[in-house]
């Protein structure tokens, strides 16, 4: 075996360890969710289940109890969908428009404004919890899904603006000038020229925002009411409900259900994510 093969082997070994590190918990969660209580008690953490027992999945989805409420994870999951879909779409559209203005229609002080917007990317959100709840109260949006959508749009806007602004900076100015001479205005240039060129960054932003908003716990726990808790908060409450027997299989199934949408999004659109992050200047 020569040195080249040896280094190859070392690379695969390192990658293998990384894969094991990330996939082992998922494996344990999956096999546990398919076991019944008896198997969990008697068996080994890593052993395969004795069959595909879907009972715990059904329980987790529709009838597991959180306190006295025994509707499973389903209502929280629906809350998360109702919260995440509009919040992702609005924050992405908002960021695209901001980025378009800040890169192609610069005005006096626009770079300074962008600098201020960047604060929003690095600011710890705990800082705004109290003022935000005041604002939501003034607006009559406390404890509502609409309130959560608003919070996520505001929190995500800085990041989406950064993504789009930096992507659009690489688009040659001459392209905008050509469109201006052709007779297109601000909105036409945005819709007909700029948006069609944005697929990679659009994908990155959509995945990024969906993952952030779906997985968010802080805003969910701080601003939701009894009927507007997102799935992350629902999962936490369900797993923490104390009963005589800990149903690990149900908790595992519930955790996978809560995490499934972000995994699906990454599997379906992940190739764009990698492409979008590495895409440089747009060749005309």
């Amino acid at each position, binding site marked *: 075996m020569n040195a080249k093969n040896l280094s190859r082997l070392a690379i695969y070994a390192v990658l293998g360890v990384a894969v094991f590190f990330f996939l082992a918990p998922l494996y344990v969660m999956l096999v546990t969710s398919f076991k019944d209580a008896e198997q969990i008690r008697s068996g080994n953490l890593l052993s395969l289940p004795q069959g595909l027992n879907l009972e715990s999945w059904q329980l987790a989805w529709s009838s597991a109890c959180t306190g006295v409420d025994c509707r499973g994870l389903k209502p929280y999951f629906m809350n998360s969908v109702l919260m995440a879909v509009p919040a992702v779409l609005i924050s992405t559209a908002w960021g695209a428009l901001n980025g378009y203005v800040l890169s192609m229609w610069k005005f006096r002080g626009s770079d300074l404004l962008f600098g201020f917007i960047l604060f929003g990317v690095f600011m710890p959100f705990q800082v705004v919890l109290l003022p935000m709840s005041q604002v939501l109260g003034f607006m009559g949006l406390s404890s509502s899904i609409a309130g959560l959508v608003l919070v996520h749009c505001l929190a995500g806007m800085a990041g989406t603006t950064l993504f789009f602004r930096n992507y659009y900076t690489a688009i*040659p100015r*001459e*392209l905008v*000038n*050509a*469109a*201006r*001479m*052709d*007779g*297109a205005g601000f909105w*036409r240039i945005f819709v*007909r*020229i700029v948006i*069609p*060129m944005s697929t990679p960054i659009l994908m990155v932003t959509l995945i990024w925002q969906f993952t952030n908003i779906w997985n968010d716990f802080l805003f969910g726990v701080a601003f939701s009411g009894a009927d507007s808790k997102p799935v992350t908060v629902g999962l936490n409450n369900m797993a923490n409900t104390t009963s005589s027997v800990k149903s690990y299989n149900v908790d595992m199934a519930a955790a996978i259900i809560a995490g499934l949408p972000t995994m699906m999004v990454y599997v379906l659109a992940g190739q764009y994510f990698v492409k979008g992050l590495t895409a440089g200047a*747009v*060749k*005309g």
Partner: protein
Amino acid sequence: MAASLHIAGIRKVFGKGDKSVEILKKIDIEVAPGEFLILVGPSGCGKSTLLNIIAGLEEPTEGELRIADKNVIGMAPAQRDIAMVFQSYALYPTMSVADNIGFALEMRKVPLEVRQKRIKEVAAMLQIEHLLDRRPAQLSGGQRQRVAMGRALARDPQLFLFDEPLSNLDAKLRVEMRAEIKRLHQLSGITTVYVTHDQIEAMTLGSRIAVMKDGVLQQIGTPDDIYRRPANTYVAGFIGSPTMNFIVGQSSGSGAEGRFSFEGGTLNLPCPVTAAVTLGQRPEHIHLSDDAAWRGQVSLVEPTGADTYVGVQTAVGMITVRTAPSTLVKVGDHVGLSVSAAHNNWFDTNSGMRLG
């Protein structure tokens, strides 16, 4: 329809107060209908800024600008009825070639059938009919250049603007597209303003050339004028390749008694004034002759095929001479140089301005 272009007292200042930079200093140019005007100069001379001002992409700090006798200051680019070809072509990457060409018409709400007919006409004119369904990324450099011109032609504008359109092409394609641009201009007769830093493009394309430097118009005239009667040493040195030889010396006498003496030689040449002057002499107007009194040593022989340029080191510096390719001189040879009384360019040594 050809339009005239009237540029008067155009100034452009960037920045404010101490940090302000004057990019254009009172530019006056009149362009007659159907003319092909070249703006030429080194980078940073303000030629592209002037073009952007004509296009309406930038506003001048002060000055007058009229297209077809209509004041266009403050008017949006789209309303000026002009079309522009950009250096990077600026084709819309997500649209087909046909949509690229038709975009301006679509923005002007031209009906679909008329638009399609016009796209076909323009494509035929540029021989790009087979490319209409392609995306810009699938085209070669020369094809993109053609599409960019097609986009400008489609609208049949009053005025064409070109911003260094050939600088991204390789040498062979550049010559080809240069001929193409000239052909299209002759075909359409549309008034054209063309920015370049390439003096060969300037000489071959322009009906008139405006040479700029540091925001100041140095000279404007026909290519012949600019080449034969440069207004100052800057224009003389900028236009022509290899560049004009400059010999700094002192003139005396007049008519047949005229003498021009300089370090290492004296020539029997009449100069319009008796003063410290600089003689500008193009390489084709200096000759190698064995019995001449002005001597030098050959330090460079450059065959280009049609001509051979010989660099001769003399007491006043390097002198470039154009000779026939059959020349036998070699590096290191001692040669004599002669200058005839025809084609002399005299400049004031201090001001650099042309004399007579």
